[in-house]
């Protein structure tokens, strides 16, 4: 367990450096350190599926970020907090806290996850149910993908939707021709 804590401290330090670094290149490299630290932690915890995904996504993100930012003028956004913005974010924060406090009673007890609480539908807790009947009911030997693609397929569909929307947003923001016509920015 000590090794995981060391890696987590390393990850947190790398994340702080990524936020505070002066140049974009060092920020991106620290971001890569965050990702690889997390993937080693996942591997150590016995989740090779997540570790593979994390490593691969980290590499591609690094390439894309370096391709997109290096050699470009960086616009720094600093010190533009206006008063209405502050008031609005305070109101939103208060609303969020109120909703959170309202639904806090519905959460399972501290230290227990929702997967460990017995439900009416299953004769046992959901996590044990998935492990026991994954191979029998879904037929896949890899229980993680059994859960991702059958028991929790809605989540995977939502994930695909999120990715689709993110790509749409990126294209719309980057494509100047959509907004300014063929000649570029007016």
């Amino acid at each position, binding site marked *: 367990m000590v090794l995981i804590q060391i890696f987590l401290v390393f990850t947190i330090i790398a994340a702080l450096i990524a936020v505070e670094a002066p140049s974009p290149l060092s920020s991106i490299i620290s971001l890569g350190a965050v990702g690889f630290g997390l993937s080693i932690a996942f591997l150590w915890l016995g989740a*090779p*599926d997540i570790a*593979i*995904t994390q490593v*691969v*996504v980290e*590499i*591609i993100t690094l*390439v*894309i970020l370096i*391709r*997109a930012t290096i050699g*470009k003028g960086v616009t720094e956004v600093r010190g533009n907090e206006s008063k209405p913005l502050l008031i609005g974010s305070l109101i939103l924060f208060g609303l969020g806290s109120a909703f959170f406090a309202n639904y806090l009673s519905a959460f399972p007890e501290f230290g227990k996850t929702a997967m460990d609480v017995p439900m009416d539908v299953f004769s046992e807790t959901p996590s044990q149910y998935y492990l026991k009947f994954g*191979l029998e*009911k*879904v*037929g*896949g*030997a*890899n229980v*993680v*993908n*059994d859960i*991702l*693609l*059958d028991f929790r*397929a*809605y989540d*995977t*569909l939502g994930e*695909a*939707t999120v*990715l*689709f929307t*993110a*790509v749409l947003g*990126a*294209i719309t923001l*980057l*494509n*100047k021709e959509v907004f300014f016509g063929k000649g*570029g920015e007016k």
Partner: protein
Amino acid sequence: MTGMSPIVKTVTRWVSPFILAFGIYIALTGHLTPGGGFPGGVIVAGCFILITLAYGKERVEGIFDLKSASVTDSLASLSFLCMGLLGYVFGGGFLNNFIQSGFPGKAFELLSGGNMPIINIAIGFKVGGSLFVVFAYLALFRAIEEE
């Protein structure tokens, strides 16, 4: 974008088929071994990104360019949704695993898991297509800005 040095080009020429095959393997056997559609699709997209970076944009044009990547992305999302709707028609619930209840395959074999392999392939195409679209747009954006 005209490409990089001959060393990078040669290494890319040797390595890229293996990367592509590994990505397809990871996506196809997601229901048997660690992996799945998401990492497989990202690896396939990484192969094409590597070729684009090493050889320039012209090399992948006609094979996997911006338009075909976005078409792949949309078609794969639609096929995932269609699998869900087919589960509604044949299995009685959205995203129901109707193939497994109809024709249960032998466990630990490639043709098992009902519609899991199909959804895995769809997710692989989807993720690969969308990541390549993002990369191609950023490369294009930069190329326009440099002119």
